[in-house]
């Protein structure tokens, strides 16, 4: 930290003191002015109007230049040009009222706001677009009750659906969770509770594994299970590939919450003579339970949407197959991948409907994770707190009853 941009030294202009500049106070001479509370920060009318003016002016300029004068086309270019014009217009408008340093400050604020809004808009647009195009096929109930077994490429949307893919996705996800969660949480407990010299490389490797290209996980299972051991492609092989993807995610998220468990709880358990196994099982893990559930659910949300591991290992089929251990089994991502590449509108609509279903599953998992994971380790839910209160009152009453006896436990009236 060497030099700092200096603030405007000039007396506060209309923008800087807009909040405190009151019409009755400006003409006052020697009369003691009533002290007003100075508003620091916040948005003034000038700020809003400057942004609005720059936006409107640049929109008009953009429309004239882009649509009328120059031979461009396309919404994308229009928006980019509008934004550039807006930035230019905003700096000019700002320069009219503020000094250069304030202009720079405001300009950066506007850029930061717009990049945040851009990201929000992108997410909203993705969800909205997939929902919009997916509704066409998903509004027919048969989409959730039929498989594609008897449906040809030109059939109406009232025939065929994604039941096979939904069931396949759920079964593969369930199996993968079954494998990944114990392994992942055990690895997390190893890093935080056992530790030692080995914990550091394990942590580094887990972080690297989180970013393992999903296609490599698929290729690995393809090479081991299907080529080397000669099994058929199946939902089980796909769930193994998903396990490779989900395990590091669960591990990383679980380690973070296990580390947040206060050390005093562990020490209390050891002081009571608990072994390490008892401490972890009865103290550490229950304390971290909400966070662990979040870790698991986030891993599931990631796993259910993985396409490339499933693509290489599960095999595609249009038929319903409820047995993950035998024969090809399609899942939602694979269903989408397969049908949107076909040149038929009906198939693309079905692909989008499956995309909508997949997004729905991911959203439900994600929201579940947030709701459960909102609490810090050791923080209780309302129901838990009420139960503890009830228990405490009962003990209190028992103590009060016992106080009548020869050994008063505690004075009446004190908690």
């Amino acid at each position: 930290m060497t030099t700092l941009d200096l603030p405007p030294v000039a007396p506060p202009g209309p923008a800087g003191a807009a909040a405190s500049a009151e019409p009755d106070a400006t003409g006052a001479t020697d009369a003691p002015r009533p002290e007003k509370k100075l508003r620091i920060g916040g948005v003034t009318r000038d700020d809003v109007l400057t942004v609005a003016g720059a936006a409107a002016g640049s929109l008009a300029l953009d429309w004239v230049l882009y649509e009328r004068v120059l031979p461009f086309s396309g919404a994308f270019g229009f928006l980019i040009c509008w934004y550039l014009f807006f930035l230019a217009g905003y700096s000019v408008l700002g320069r009219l009222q503020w000094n250069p340093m304030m202009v720079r400050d405001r300009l950066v604020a506007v850029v930061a706001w717009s990049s945040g809004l851009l990201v929000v808009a992108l997410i909203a647009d993705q969800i909205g677009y997939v929902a919009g195009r997916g509704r066409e096929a998903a509004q027919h109930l048969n989409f959730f009750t039929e498989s594609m077994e008897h449906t040809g490429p030109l059939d109406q949307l009232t025939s065929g659906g994604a039941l096979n893919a939904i069931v396949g996705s759920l079964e593969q996800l369930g199996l993968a969770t079954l494998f990944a969660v114990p392994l992942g949480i055990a690895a997390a407990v190893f890093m935080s509770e056992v530790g030692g010299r080995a914990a550091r490389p394990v942590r580094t490797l887990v972080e690297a594994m989180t970013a393992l290209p999903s296609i490599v996980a698929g290729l690995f299972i393809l090479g081991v299970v299907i080529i080397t051991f000669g099994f058929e492609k199946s939902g089980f092989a796909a769930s193994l590939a998903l396990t490779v993807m989900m395990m590091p995610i669960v591990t990383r998220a679980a380690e973070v919450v296990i580390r947040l468990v206060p050390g005093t709880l562990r020490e209390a358990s050891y002081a009571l003579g608990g072994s390490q196994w008892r401490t972890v099982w009865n103290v550490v893990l229950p304390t971290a339970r909400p966070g662990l559930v979040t870790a698991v659910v986030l891993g599931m949300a990631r796993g259910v949407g993985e396409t490339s591991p499933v693509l290489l290992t599960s095999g595609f089929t249009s038929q319903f197959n409820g047995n993950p251990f035998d024969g090809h089994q399609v899942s939602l991502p694979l269903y989408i991948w397969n049908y949107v590449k076909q040149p038929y509108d009906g198939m693309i609509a079905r692909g989008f409907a499956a995309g909508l279903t997949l997004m729905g599953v991911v959203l439900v998992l994600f929201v579940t994770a947030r709701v459960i994971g909102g609490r810090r380790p050791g923080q209780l839910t309302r129901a838990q707190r009420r139960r503890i209160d009830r228990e405490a009152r009962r003990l209190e009453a028992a103590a009060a009853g016992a106080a009548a006896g020869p050994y008063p436990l505690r004075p009446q009236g004190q908690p």
Partner: protein
Amino acid sequence: MTSAAEPAAPYAGVPRQPDHGPDQDVPRAITAPATPGDRVFRGVLRLAGFSVFAIMGLIAFFLILRGTDALRTVGWSFLTEQKWQTAAHNFGIAAVLPNGLLIAVIALVIAVPVAIGTAIFISEYAPVRLRAALVSLIDLMAAIPSIVYGLWGLFFLQPRIIGFVRWMANHLGDTIPFLKVRIGDINTSYTSSTFIAGVVVSLMIIPIITSLSREVFSQAPQGEREGAYALGSTRWGMVRRVVLPFGKGGVIGAVMLGFGRAMGETIAVALIISPNFEAITHILENGANSISALIALRFGESDSLSLSALMAAGLVLFALTLLVNVLAGIVINRSRSGAATAD
């Protein structure tokens, strides 16, 4: 908990350690012998911890094992050959690898400014009440499946971006050679290109870079922030002189992590590109490729040499991403531990 400061007073009944005389009292090392249950427990945990090594090792081992056939067939030309004709024993990654890296670089060029801007926005400019919601939203963006990004890119983005791409090709192509489009001026000359794939991949790495950068930005010390304000700094002055220098290491690590993710991205790329097999010099032209897209599009070929060639390509991808990710992890850990701000 430990006994480091235990007084050396002679406790009755506590057996002295035999090596020390009465005037050489040292604190006893308290070692509770692990119960058999604990020993089993630790063993199981250690096994789980080392399973990570086992999995990564097995991945490398099987990719090498399965890829040897192909590597033996073509030898070193695997690294220099651009074509991918496995039946003719004429294949290599000299086209798919650089083309994939090109997609990742384009993705970074777009994603890094937006992601850092968003991270600064969330940690410095957004109203405090909105911050938690925004952080959740970025996490949600990271959880959106890549096939959905692919759908969006293929059906929503591509038709709308063509006008912009054509404008770049026609007006900037003459001055900036790699933006030129040499094939005819019809819509399909501009689709399925390296650039469009890069744009879609950039959306997928924005949440990764954003959330890591936001994390380091929000850890910038409060005292220094207030110091900057007290010296009369504007908010941007504070961000530039306090927050950004503090977060530099973390941001570099986040960008590297984003690069690793972009290299490995498969499905969205495979949906959008139309594969080609020569090193790309003009990013706006139809035709692109990457190792992961190659694997996703070609794994259906049934002869064992083709599969083996894909395994070898996968091995290269695995090694590269592992390298980038481990380096990124080291950079991020150093920045988290505060080593980066020691100067």
